[in-house]
Structures are given as C-alpha cells and as structure tokens.
C-alpha cells in the first residue's frame, strides 16, 4: 500500500475517500439543485417509526386544535374531509439520508385549519401530537403561508397506516420526522417545547438544506 490515495481534496475541509466515485444523479436530470447535502434520491418510500403502527378506527378519530386559541376546535373524520382540501406536489427529505422528489399528497393546509380558530397573539410555537404518543415541534411561522398541511391521501389513495394514515402532518421544507404520522392535533404555545426525536439527539429545527440533523448541528 505505497499509495494510500489519501489526501485533502480541493475542498478545504473535505477528506477525500480513496477510490470512492459515488453514484450521482445525471446533471441532465435537473435534480441536482433539489437534493439537500448528504441526501440521495430514492424511488420507493421507506418507512421509519419508533414503535408499532397505531391503528385508530376512523369512527373514533378526531383532529384537535388546542392551546393558545380562544376556543379549541375539533373535527371527526367525516367533518375533517369536508374542510377545503388541496393537492400538493413536494420533495421530501428524511434525516436517514433519503430524499423523494415530487411526492403527491392531498390534504388540508394548516392555513385553512387556522381559519377555524382565533389564535392568541402569544402563540409562537406548535407541538403536533399523534396516536401512540409521538410529538414534534415546529415554530408557528414555519407552518403557515402554504408551508404545511395535514394529508390524508398519498398518490391518489388513502394514506397507508405505515406512512402515517389516516392522516399525517406534512412539513416538506423540514426533515420528515417533523411531518408527524398519525397526527391527532396541533397545540399552540408561547414557548418552544422539544418533541420526541428533538429530545433524543435530533435537531430542534431540522432544515435539510442546512443539514440540521442532530443536536448542535
């Protein structure tokens, strides 16, 4: 092993790995600018979760808005489906390094949900809470103005339980653990409160373009 091929490359702080070429997306694919650092594109839809998949019957499902609102609001499944829905086509990125382009969803914008309540002006942070006890936190300004929705269809079909059905939050501009599966409501708060993964070593904010993967990134 006279030549170890180890040297610091043209990028000042990047350690070049001997013999690694990689499998990059063709420049012509037009995808290059859509893949955050450290991510790779997948065509399937990986499933990740911390425990068993909850299976709440639609008859006992409800969605609730609570916390710093004048009056909490709650919808059963049938009423939730009556809220104005939209189609969304979004790129999503999971902290486990996969990115999926042009995912197709149908659901209700958080903006629409907030039209149904009177929000206290002190509200600055949101906890999404789910069946099974999962929680995740997002600053309020990052959930509004078309940035987030509660989805109940994926690719033209009801959202499968392992992907978070009957309904999940989708916040496409943050790592996908923020897009809480099996969502049952949003709690509005004055102060930020770290959620499940945010308390277990993952970043409090989770912007894929800044590679905010873990605590302190």
């Amino acid at each position, binding site marked *: 092993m006279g030549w170890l091929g180890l040297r610091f490359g043209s990028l000042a702080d990047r350690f070049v790995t001997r013999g690694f070429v990689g499998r990059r997306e063709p420049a012509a694919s037009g995808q290059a600018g859509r893949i955050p650092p450290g991510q790779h594109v997948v065509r399937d839809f990986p499933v990740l979760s*911390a425990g068993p998949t909850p299976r709440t019957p639609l008859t006992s499902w409800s969605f609730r808005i609570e916390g710093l609102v004048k009056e909490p609001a709650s919808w059963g499944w049938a009423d939730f489906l009556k809220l104005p829905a939209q189609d969304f086509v979004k790129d999503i990125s999971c902290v486990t390094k996969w990115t999926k382009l042009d995912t197709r969803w149908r659901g209700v914008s958080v903006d629409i949900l907030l039209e149904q309540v009177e929000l206290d002006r002190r509200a600055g942070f949101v906890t999404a809470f789910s069946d099974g006890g999962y929680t995740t936190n997002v600053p309020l300004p990052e959930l509004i103005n078309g940035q987030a929705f509660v989805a109940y269809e994926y690719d033209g079909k009801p959202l499968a339980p392992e992907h978070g059905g009957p309904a999940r939050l989708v916040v496409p501009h943050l790592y996908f653990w923020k897009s809480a599966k099996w969502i049952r409501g949003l709690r509005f708060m004055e102060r930020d409160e770290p959620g499940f993964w945010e308390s*277990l070593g993952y970043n409090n904010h989770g912007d894929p373009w800044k590679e905010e993967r873990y605590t302190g990134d």
Partner: protein
Amino acid sequence: MKRLLEWQIATVTSIKVETSEVKTLTLALPKWMPHRPGQHYDVRLTAEDGYSAQRSYSVASEPERTGEIDLTVERIGDGEVSPYLDDTVVVGDRFEVRGPIGGYFVWDSSVGGSLLLVAGGSGVVPLMAMLRHRAATGVKDPAHLLYSARTYDQVIYRQELEMLARKNGFAVSYTLTRSQPAGWTGYARRIDDAMLSEVSAPLGRTALAYVCGPTALVEVAADGLERIGLSADRIRTERFGPSGP
C-alpha cells in the same frame, strides 16, 4: 456553530467476512466515545471532485471495547455506499464518520428486566451490540433473540450467538424462511403470532422488545407483539427499508 457531533476520520483496522453479503469493519476512532447499544454512526464518503454520500450504520460492538467500533455492513446490490465499504475498502483505509447517534432504539444494562429481541436479516446488528454489552456486563435477566434469515448461511454472528446462548439466561431461536439445512429443527417460516408467543412466553408480558429488520417484518412482529399482550410502549422498532443503509 460548532457541531456537537463532529466528523472524525476513522481508520479501518480489520475486516471480517460474516456472510457472502456482509462484512464487519473495525474502525479505530481518534475521538472515540462510549455509545449506547443500538446507536448508529453516520459514514461520509467523498469523491475527488467533492461529491459526497452519507449513510447510517448501526454499531455492532459493545461500548466496553474502547477506542474502536465495529460496523457490520450488508452489501446492497444497487447501493452506493455499501458496495464501496464491502468491496473497495482495505485495512488501513480511512473515511469520515460521526456519532454515536440515536436515543430511543437503545438498551443498556441499567434498564433491567427481560429482553426480547427480534431481528430480520442485517437488522440483527444493533441487537448484537445489546447482546455483547449484556454479556460484558454480566446481566442475568433473561433475554431471547428471535432471528429471521433466509438461509442458515446468511445468519450473521452465528458462532458467537451460539456461544453466548450457553450462558446468563440468553437463548436464541432462528427461523429460516427460504431454505433449511438437512435435519433443521428450528422454525422455517415467516414470523407470526404463534412464533412470537412461543419465544416470548418465558419472558412474561412485561418484556422490553426491540424489533429491527425490513419494514414488512417489523410491521408483522410489532403488531404481533401487541396482539399477544405486550404494551405498545414496550415495543421499539428500527427499520431497514429497501433504500436503507
């Protein structure tokens, strides 16, 4: 802002062939710190032109082994990082890693109580870290590993598991789903509720369960454990999707 988890340059100090598709790389780490069994490291490989790729790999070794970690890597046919780690890397090579990462799919000897581990294929890797740590710390509470593999030859860590299974209340059951050697007396089907009942019976309903493998296996096993009476908050899962590591 300085990262809490900094990239460091690991040096490959040994390579062990586990099965035809799986190798274990031992990495010396200049900034080693103890991990919790079940945690993973991120690996970052960088090409000459700056292109880089990252993947996560579970630590297979126990934290009692200081200064180094084992990563057991299954070669994914059309993968990007695993073929490099399994085919190109030789002893003495170096690449970037950072970790340890993850705070939920972890177990250490302070947890106590009986332990049920369910593995599919290379999903056994983080569970092996738990078992090695359990042996190193002399834990006596019962533990059972149910390990689903396609064939006998694809069972990773087989000799070590059989050695561990003779002591300290640890037992291992295999199910071989594709083919079985002559005279096989173990399970020979996909994991189902009856199998989960049999292996978990001696552990009681309060066992803490860790399930790791491909999504289909994890769904079946986690749902099954709930059906046979374990509470959902005692079942922890980790998945290796087709696009996983």
